[in-house]
């Protein structure tokens, strides 16, 4: 596996905070966690009606799912298994090598 399979089970959440309350709640949920902000670049830039894409590690995904549901914040999972997507993106290359 690429990167020693370190991204297996990691997910990218796509979250849609609708108002200031949800923005603040989201900052409270994600701020203390070791997450990787894809968009925007950091928790401090989260604002209402702007999509948040965040990479969450495998072990933290259940907690993030639970908290977002509990707070009724609108979200989806844009990448359900990051390792698979990485293998897929690089799969073309390895096949190229074979070619």
């Amino acid at each position, binding site marked *: 596996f690429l990167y020693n399979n370190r991204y297996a089970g990691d997910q990218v959440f796509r979250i849609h905070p609708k108002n200031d309350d949800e923005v603040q709640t989201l900052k409270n949920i994600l701020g203390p966690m070791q997450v990787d902000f*894809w*968009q925007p*670049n*950091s928790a401090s830039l989260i604002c209402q009606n702007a999509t948040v*894409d965040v990479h969450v590690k495998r072990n933290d995904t259940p907690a993030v799912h639970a908290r977002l549901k509990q707070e009724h914040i609108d979200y989806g999972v*844009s990448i359900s298994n990051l390792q698979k*997507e990485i293998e897929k993106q690089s799969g073309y*290359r390895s096949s190229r090598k074979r070619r």
Partner: protein
Amino acid sequence: SEFQYDYEVYHSLEEIQSWMFEMNRTQAHLVDLFSVGKSYEGRPLYVLQVGKRSRRQKKAVWIDCGVHAREWIGPAFCQWFVREAVSSYQLDSGMRRLLNQLTFYIMPVFNVDGYYFSWTKDRFWRKTRSKNHKFHCRGVDANRNWKVKWCAQGASTHPCDDTYCGPFPESEPEVKAVAKFLRKHKKRVKAYISIHAYAQMLLYPYSYKYTTIPNFDCVESAARSAVTALYAAYGLKYRYGPASTTLYISSGSSIDWAYKNGIPYTFAFELRDTGHFGFLLPESLIGPTCTETTRAVKAIASGVLKKC
């Protein structure tokens, strides 16, 4: 034998550097290669100079790719643009006019250490790879490290944050080297373009404040023609405008620094997509993304040659 290179896959740093040497060797009439310095880990910072050789001092356009390591579509675009420029010089009168009248300085990988690290250890690394003697975290955000409203809103003072501005402006050798080159050539460099991902936007100054730039009409017109040209390829709609309002406030950015240092047209492209694949844009989308972006860059370069 004909140099075979696949422009529709992502390439490692080593492959990109070999390709640069090969382009310099095989396209010597249009392509020169030089280094502007060394990275934190000692890697050379290679730049390609593309354009018809000329004794007179030509206007220049600077394009850098790969400031943020994980944004692999950037380096793919820089390589694509060089290939497009060289291969269409004879066939396309528009490109021939650009290469006859302008010099393009193209830096396929700005953050060479970070890019290498994103291929080998951490696919989603963003920053450079400099060390901080007080913290275990490494790296500075190379787009928060330029000497313009440095480390203010939209940048972080914490070394472990992804938008860390660094211990001081131009602390990163990569930023210092490019700034030094642009300062030296600023009379000739009329446009600065930095390629990022992802958001499908074309951004211009200011990033650090909401004020309108003095030559707003000309820059807005160039941006509009660029996104119109881009749209014409595959119908993709880009948002465009001042970075502070179109995206968000950030300080220490390269486009603000270049603009403040006298370069009249400075842009940051945020290429595909808008989050579906994010940084993992499939190789199957390299072609369309680079084709449309090449049209936009040519439109900006044409604007540089016009009076505004």
